[in-house]
């Protein structure tokens, strides 16, 4: 299949979205865990921030990340005519 400009643009936007989401993922996963000791001094609704993030905050962020990805990719697919299945 010949790749057109449109396909490349689609792929660029796909990569950008993935990059942004991966960075968000990295912050709530690695940064939060790596600096857990420092962040534990911050109180979040009475819990140490690092504990809250590990037990709930990161998980909520993960769900949001997946939701954003699914929604954005569906939009992109429709916009560029490479969508599969029902809209």
């Amino acid at each position, binding site marked *: 299949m010949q790749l057109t400009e449109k396909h490349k643009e689609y792929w660029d936007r796909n990569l950008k979205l993935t990059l942004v989401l*991966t960075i968000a993922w990295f912050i709530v996963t690695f940064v939060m865990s790596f600096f857990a000791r420092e962040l534990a001094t911050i109180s979040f609704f009475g819990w140490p921030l690092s*504990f809250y993030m590990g037990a709930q905050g990161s998980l909520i962020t993960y769900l949001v990340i997946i939701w954003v990805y699914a*929604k954005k990719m569906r939009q992109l697919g429709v916009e560029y005519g490479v969508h599969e*299945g029902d809209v």
Partner: protein
Amino acid sequence: MSSQASSNRAFFNELKTYYTWYTGGFIVFLIALAILEQLGLPKVWIGHVFLFATIGLYAGIGIMARTADIAEYYVAERRVPAIFNGMATGADWMSAASFIGMAGGLYLLGFDGLAFIMGWTGGYCLVAFLLAPYLRKFGQFTIPDFLGARYGGNLARFIGVLSTRRLDAETQKDSTPAAIDDVGPTPLSRAVAATLTSHASQAGRRSAQHACARHTGRARRAAPTNEDDA
């Protein structure tokens, strides 16, 4: 196209009927057991009824929905609507390893045990936007299949099998046994077992089979289907 859409709609309604009956049946089952308990059925019996009823149901669903077709086996021909796929994913997420293993992990490891909790869901993110869409576009269901198709030949596929098996052993080794050793069979743990089993069968007939296969290690890491699988 429109006949396709209407057949999808019919399938959706069919699934909805099954699920409604199933949920209703499960509630009736719970109430019946509660009544029997009040009437003096021994606790041991209740535990056994719970366990065998749910396992029997699980097996029954597996037998009714059995298939030898690979596309059917992994993704139920891509016909299962997103909402039911979501339930399947949720059920898989709440598998015995997460329920029992995480309780044990937190008990033994304290704060460090949270790594398992984060990994469970965080890993799904990575699969969802780094692996699954490309496996899907590639038309393969597992990483070994993908490697085999991408690099050609069985050697690549074999290396893929070895490394995924290895990773799998690595991740499952630590998490599960802790809690079971410490708690032992209690009514609560039986309830957990029953809930897990019923969740898994709620998850969709063919997808449930897939979840079951994953847990027995026959099929590894199928690509989760995309959001637009309706």
